[in-house]
Every structure is written in C-alpha cells, then in structure tokens.
C-alpha cells in the first residue's frame, strides 16, 4: 500500500503530531517522580513500579488516547476535505477504497505508536522512581498496553465514520469529543445500554488480565470486531459517495 507511507509521512511532518508524541512520552516521566515525592511525604505506597504503568494506562485509555484519536481522525478526513488537500491524492490512480483503508491503517499505527510510547515511558518511570518493579510486571504491562489497542481502534473507526459527516475538522473534533463524553457517562449511568458502546471496553485489558480467555471476553471480542467491521463498511460507503 504505497499510500500508507504517504499518510504516515504526512502525520509525522505535522508539528502537532510531534508535540503529542513528546507529551505522551513525557507525561508518565513527570507523574512518576511526583507520586514518589507524595508517597515519601505521607508515608504510604499507593502505586509501586509494577502497578504504575497500569494506572497510567487506565488514565490514557479513558480520556487521553481517545482525544488524540479524535484529533488525528478529524484532521485526516474532515480537515483534509476542508483544506481541499484530500483531492490532491484522489486525482491520482488510487481507488477511494485504498485511500480510505490506508488512512484507517495509519490511524491504527499512530495509536499503537502512542500506546508503546506511553508504555515505555511508564515502565522506565516505574523502574527508576518506584519500588517493586518486576519482570512479570513488565510483561503484564506490555500485554495490557497491546490489548488496549483493540477497543481503542474500534472507537477510532467510529470516529472516522463521524468525521466523514463534517466539512471542518474543528466541528468534527467537537462533535467526536462530546459524543465520547456522552458514551462514557452512559456507561456509568446505564450499564445495560453501556455494553453496546465501545467506551464500555475501556477496561478491556483488565478483563483479559483478570479472567483470561472466557466466554465473556470472547463475546466482547466478537462484538468489537463486528462493531469495527460495521463502521468501516458504512464509513467507506459514505467516503465513496462523497463529492469534492
């Protein structure tokens, strides 16, 4: 897919992407020493080297990473349409399906890169600043970060579908953030409805780590795959019908 390289290069050439990569790497490095100072001052141990990456992950998957995903997706689709740059590639021998797929795959790689940056940074912080850093803890943390890619990607595909309805990146971003917040609130208020929303799987890694491969995790996996496939398909349909 030659356009995947194009999409990735475009992403890396944006100043905002570099800033966000740096912020993602710096956040755990700054939080770690602060926690250690507080723990020393008050004489208790809330987080140790083993649990610290998972605490950071739970914060990241709840708000930080969905926000970054919304930023990336709204710029990649609505933003490029707004700036009329999407057509620059659409008038070349590249089908809309290939362009759409390469953008989604690029979003997936971007998400994985962010997760790995936060993972590495929180592991380093845990090892240097906090006690009880173990090799098994490292493996669990790494698996948890990798597992989190899947439900976040389902949210990413939903955000792509939403971004296609807007002609401006700021409108797409605002709507995506509001919708995500509504999904999070609904998850707490109405657990019955919540299971149909992708935000329900924010603690996906915990379910796998605590329960392993069960009927419930299997069912959720099938649900998320179907959810992603559905929104990929309707998203592509919308993209293929778009006029520029």
């Amino acid at each position, binding site marked *: 897919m*030659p356009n995947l390289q*194009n999409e990735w*290069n*475009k992403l890396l050439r*944006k100043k905002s992407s570099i800033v966000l990569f740096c912020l993602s790497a710096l956040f755990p490095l700054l939080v770690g020493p602060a926690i250690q100072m507080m723990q020393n001052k008050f004489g208790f141990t809330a987080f140790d080297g083993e649990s610290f990456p998972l605490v950071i992950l739970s914060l990241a998957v709840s708000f930080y990473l969905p926000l970054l995903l919304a930023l990336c997706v709204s710029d990649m689709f609505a933003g490029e349409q707004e700036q*009329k*740059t999407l057509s*620059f590639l659409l008038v*070349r*021998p590249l089908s809309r399906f290939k362009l759409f797929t390469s953008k989604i795959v690029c979003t997936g790689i971007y998400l994985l890169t962010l997760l790995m940056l936060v993972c590495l940074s929180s592991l380093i912080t845990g090892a240097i600043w906090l006690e009880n850093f173990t090799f098994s803890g490292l493996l669990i943390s790494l698996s948890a970060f990798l597992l989190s890619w899947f439900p976040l990607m389902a949210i990413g595909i939903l955000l792509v579908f939403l971004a296609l309805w807007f002609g401006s990146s700021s409108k797409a971003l605002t709507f995506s953030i509001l919708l995500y917040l509504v999904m999070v609130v609904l998850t707490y208020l109405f657990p019955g409805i919540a299971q149909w929303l992708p935000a329900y799987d924010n603690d996906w890694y915990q379910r796998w780590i605590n329960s392993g491969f069960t009927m419930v995790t299997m069912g959720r996996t099938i649900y998320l795959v179907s959810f992603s496939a559905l929104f990929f398909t309707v998203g592509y349909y919308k993209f293929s019908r778009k006029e520029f």
Partner: protein
Amino acid sequence: MPVLELQNVTKQYKNGRGVENISFSVEHGEIFGLLGPNGAGKTTLMKCIVALSHPEQGKILINGYNVMEHFELAMQSVGTLISGVEAFDYLTAYQNLLLAARLYPSLEKGRIDEVLHWVGMEEHKHEKVKSFSTGMRQRLYLAAALLSKPSFVILDEPTNGLDIEGKLDFQELISRLAKDEGVTFILSTHLIDEVERLCNRIAILSKGKIIAEVDKNQLAEGQTFESFYINHIRKGKEVNQNAQLTK
C-alpha cells in the same frame, strides 16, 4: 479509440447549476479546449472526468475504461490539474510531489526534479507550500500533473494566477509536449488567447450545455476561435432573450 469519451453526462447541483447531457470525445494527440464563461460548468465537468464528482447520468471513458468502474486503470496515464485541488501546505514542493510520485511505481528517481525544472520551481523545491504565491502554487500543480509522464493531461484553468511570463512558459511547455511527445490535452479555460495559441479543436460550454464544437480546420477563412466563440455566445444570449420575451 478516443483518449476521452463523454456520453450524455449529466450532473446537477441543488442550486440548479451543473452540466446537462454532455457528449464529446478527445482523440489522441489533440489539444482540446473547453471554453465557456465563468459558471458555465467547466470545473464541474472536469471534476466529473476525474471522479471527484459523480455524474447522475452518462458514462465517462478514459482510454476505454469507465472512470466510475475502473478508476485506477483509467487514471494510470493521466495527469490532472483541477481548479480547487490544493497541495499540503505544511509540506515542501518536493515532499508534495513525492506523495504523488509514490502512486506511480514505475517512475524513475529524478523525475520530480525534472518536472520542477520544467515549471521553473527547482529553486523553491525545499520551501513549504504555505509560503508560495498563487502563481507558484499553480506551477507546482502543473508539475504534479506532468509528473507521471502522462499520455493524457486534464487542465482546468491552468494559467489562473500566473504572470505573463508564466503563461508564455506554460503555453510553450504544452505545445512542446503535444508536438514532441504526442501528449493529448483537454484544457478548460475562459481565456480565448490561450485557446487560440494552443488548441486544435474546441467545444463551447454555456449554462451547462455544449452549444458548439469546431475543429481549427473547419473554421471559415478569416475566422478565429475567438470570433467563433463570440458568435455562439451572443447567439445563445439572443435565444435566451427571445425565449424570455415569448414567455
């Protein structure tokens, strides 16, 4: 087989603008001019040809391939400069052309520099597009259109924003490519002198319809594309006025 063939293409927008029942073909080696006043539907038609817009009716064939069904095959040897299509302004001229070049796997390495030289932009190749004037952007888009060594080039208002020297350079380049390399062009414009210098056949588009089509050889003695165009546009206006009076 014609390089480009339009069969009864219709595209109407909600505001009533668009094109209706357009049919024509462009043969190999021609420089075909699509001439019309502002708002006649030239860009709509160009966007339909490259599938940025979807016609409601009709067929568009490039080298025998239906653009809506076999887009990649149809566009393989086509270069485009469409009005309103922008380059990525946070990238340099070279990086923008590199994005396009990746979609043509058989392109040799030095091609980007070659087309930048043709349009006089090699000195600015490492400058970001956001610092470019309209004319410089237009030169870059022309470079992007010629990048893939196309056998057919679609140019929509290509000299918009170019200074006199830029226009003359552009006309020389088009003439040379058509003569030496047999490249076929379709050129949409409202600049009659451009058509006069470059084209060997024209179609006049007015209010979304083709009202006349003529080959340079078919023009009467002493007649130019300009006089042919003015006659038909005036005739069109008279017909409209008479129709309104009858109502």
